[in-house]
């Protein structure tokens, strides 16, 4: 069926099967490969995107369901070519990533979290991160990055 999805402010028209997951639509249909696919059953958080501004698993929704909603992916964070937003910069400065596989999902989770809680304490940051798995670095530097942004 033919659908029009609004992703990062741009409309994309595609012919898709109803069973196509939103995560696969983003990656394979429109080439936004920043959204990573880890577990495909909602546990790892790598595919987290913003659905009308709220963090959600792209692997647990069908692309056809996203019609009429605003989808934002990690590609929308950068303010311009070669530039990072404040959270991304804090990740770099705090060494908050190693392999980077989990990073897009974590950035989207935290973007929504910081919009709602601009000055969180450490416990709230850890709670917010509980739905995203990182298997390289642990979470300490990620927490540091968030607190750095919150203090700025």
């Amino acid at each position, binding site marked *: 069926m033919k659908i029009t999805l609004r992703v990062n402010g741009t409309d994309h028209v595609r012919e898709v099967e109803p*069973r196509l997951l939103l995560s696969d639509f983003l990656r394979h249909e429109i080439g936004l490969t920043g959204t990573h696919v880890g577990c495909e059953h909602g546990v790892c958080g790598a595919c987290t995107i913003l659905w009308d501004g709220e963090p959600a698993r792209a692997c647990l929704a069908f692309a056809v369901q996203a019609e009429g909603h605003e989808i934002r992916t990690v590609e929308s964070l950068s303010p311009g070519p070669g530039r990072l937003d404040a959270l991304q910069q804090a990740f770099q400065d705090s060494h908050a990533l190693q392999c980077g596989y989990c990073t897009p999902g974590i950035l989207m989770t935290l973007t929504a979290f910081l919009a709602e809680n601009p000055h969180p304490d450490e416990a709230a940051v850890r709670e917010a991160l509980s*739905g995203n798995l990182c298997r390289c670095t642990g979470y300490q530097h990620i927490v540091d990055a968030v607190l750095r942004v919150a203090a700025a």
Partner: protein
Amino acid sequence: MKPAAFDWHAPTLLAEALALKAGHGEAARFLAGGQSLVPAMNFRVAQPAVLIDLNRVAVLDHLGFEEDGTLAIGALCRYRRLERDAEVARRLPLLAEALAEVAHPQIRTRGTLGGNLCHADPASEMPAVMLALEARLVLRRAGGIRQVAAAEFFLGPLATALAEDEMLAEIRIPPLPPGSGTAFLEVARRRGDYAMMGVAVVLRRGPDGRCDLARIALCSAGPTPMAAPRAAAALLGQALEPAAFAAAAALAVQEIAPMGSVQASPAYQRHLAGVLLPRALARAAERAA
């Protein structure tokens, strides 16, 4: 890890959704938040031929207190909306406390209470909370409606009282008895995981200072969410003190029927119930007026 093909219907009217279910019966599943059904489809544990997507049925997306204090929760009401509602937290603190233990914010963005109850995972928190709150569930089908108590809804692991043409359309939670205190506690291996054991309790102190109302429900404690009526009855007439809590917990441990999991043996689950219940009862007693 990709779902099998299905026919997708996205009606906007409740009557359309019910007519589709009547037409397709068991071959069709309703889709609300999809946070249990879609993983099952990705694993191909579930392969419905037809999905009736309720996300555009606006009339199901409601949340509000009625005049008599009953909270009516539509089938499409997201967990996030419930957990952010200050009035829900004030009037039904047990619900708010347990919601914080349900998975993660990203899951609660989409996930619904109605979908969770229909999934009927005995390890899930909300079915037990519905028992403790004595929720009633509104089941609709084309041309028909009935209500069942939460205690009659859960028949076994992933099995409910829903007939093949029925939809869980609304959850109705009566007001807590005035003066009662509540508590929810669980032990899970990781934050957001299903509990290895979870307990939900409601307590009230009578005019004579002794317990005159007690409800106990547990998750991960059997094939369905489990009530512990003998344990609750043993609290009645007692002073709300550690000895009574320990005695009730000892009874509850005998009443439940934990099935064990890769994370916890039945014996360990019983042990956890014996530890968590006195703590939860003490907390509820502190909160009771």
